[in-house]
């Protein structure tokens, strides 16, 4: 779980926010806060699929499905199982 979170945090900081040094905390809101915009959500979904072998459907790309790293990591873990 911790590894998943840190891998996601690294991806978001470097590829989406273009600020590799930016720390993202596990409970920081990502979508509702506007930190990740709709175009970047696709990138995140593709990264999750390639890295963890878990699919997130396009209808799930919203703050109701996940809004922080803890929620996203749990979603990934639950689908891996």
């Amino acid at each position, binding site marked *: 779980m911790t590894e998943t979170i840190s891998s996601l945090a690294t991806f978001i900081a470097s590829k989406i926010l273009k600020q590799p040094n930016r720390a993202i905390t596990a409970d920081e809101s990502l979508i509702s806060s506007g930190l990740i915009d*709709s175009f970047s959500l696709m990138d995140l979904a593709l990264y999750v699929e390639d890295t963890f072998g878990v699919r997130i459907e396009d209808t799930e790309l*919203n703050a109701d499905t996940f809004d922080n790293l803890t929620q996203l990591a749990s979603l990934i873990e639950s689908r891996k199982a």
Partner: protein
Amino acid sequence: MTTFPERLKSLHSTPERVAVTLQFSNTDDLPITVDQLLRGASPYAGALAKAGIQPGEVVVLILQHSEVLLYAFWGAILHGAIPSIMPFLTEKLSPERYRADLSALISVTQPAAIITYPEFESEVRSALQEGDSVRQVIITNQVETSTELDFDSLLGFQRKPEDIVLLQHSSGTTGLQKGVALSHQAVFNQLNAYGKALTLNENDVIVSWLPLYHDMGLIAGFLTPILLGVHLVLMSPFDWVRAPYKLMQSVSKYRGTLSWLPNFAYNFCAQKIRDRHLEGVDLSTWRAVINCSEPVRWESHQAFYEKFKPYGLKLETLQVSYAMAENVFSVTQSSLGSIPAVVELDRETFMSERVAKSPVDGRPAMKMMSSGRPLENVKVKIVDANGNAVADRVIGEVAIQSDCMLTSYYHRDDLTQKAFVDGWYLTGDYGFMVDGEVFVSGRKKDMIIVGGKNVYPQDLESLTYEVPGVHAGRSVAFGMFDEEQGTEDVVIIAEVNSEDPAEQQKVADAIRLHVTKNSAIALRYVKVVDSKWILKTSSGKTARSANKEKFLAELTRS
């Protein structure tokens, strides 16, 4: 010459033809026949009449991708009112900013009514002020769903071809101050000339995900098909951005022939669509995908073609147009069926001497794609700073003349007068011509185009000054072309007094959030710097291009 209502009436001679198919993310596709469209629209005309709205008055529509948006728009037309579609509040935008933008639009445009959903009524009412122009807020669930169609009772039939039929607003704070007013005649002149350039015919099917509050979506992806009797398949931009493959699936399912896309969408589709979403997809019916509304890139066409070639996409399907709301839409169009011209240029003389010369051996060259030739009703000339026409291959400002120009910037005669010089509309775009082909090479104004949306750096800079820790005059915004994304990325640099990295990070986050919530864009690059980083001109103004060069130099060094 005709009017929108007259055209709708004549289209009703084939009432059962499907005019529009609406697509949604969670429900089945919804085909709407010409008869259903008119019967759905006529209650809105009735509601406007009952509310005392006069023909010729502006009605603002604040509605999402839906049947109701179609009915309200055409209902306003049938009543002879002037519809203007305003973007809906999205999750990312701050409601306060949205309200402020709406109030600004109301104060300039002076609409007599607003049509919106019951859930959104209180939001709309909170933007209204005592004594403003809005006399009625019409709520969609209080409008009858369908009525008898009685053309004789509809006031829209009294409109004349030269009357204003609709307003187009571009996004962004500055854009909201400028509604482009178009007449029935201007729109039909455009559609006739453009339809000819596209060899548009009744067998065509237009597939679009473009929002209707932009000219590309409103004209190419809405009015053109509906008024010319071509089947339109329409999906929501919000669904498309999460599932870009749906465009390909829809083209395959409905045997789509034409689509319009901004340049970034070519890269987005090429990079982000998975092959599993393309199983069984056949794109061989697509005869034109037209690149428009931001600078066109040959590389983006290549990437798109390579990705979708296995699914039947033909290279000559990829086309280009140069368009603007002030000319209703298209100014130029590449010739369908052949590949748009690409010229190779010597990079150095292009940048320093503003001339598009052929490449010289051993020196860096660059490729530029043509935007095609002017439509038959449009004249294009390239002019120097004094308004004199320049020779082929010399870069100057693009000036146009046509019979489909705007009537005015609505209630902004000052801007309308400034826009025309000796009967020519000065576009603010730089470009050059080679053998009748128009190449658009840059912009006069500091406008940034991100994914087809126009934003002004001064608006973004003003937003940063609202963030605690950033002082007025101490930030700079500019666009930086992103090769991978095929569009510009916005960069904001702001000076703060603190040199503490943690404090700087906090301000950077606050800027990113504030700008994203209060503008049309999502801000990615924020750089917080120590004081004295930003370069100023001798008169104390922020020099955007000098700061951009400094930023790029630091970026390549790091």
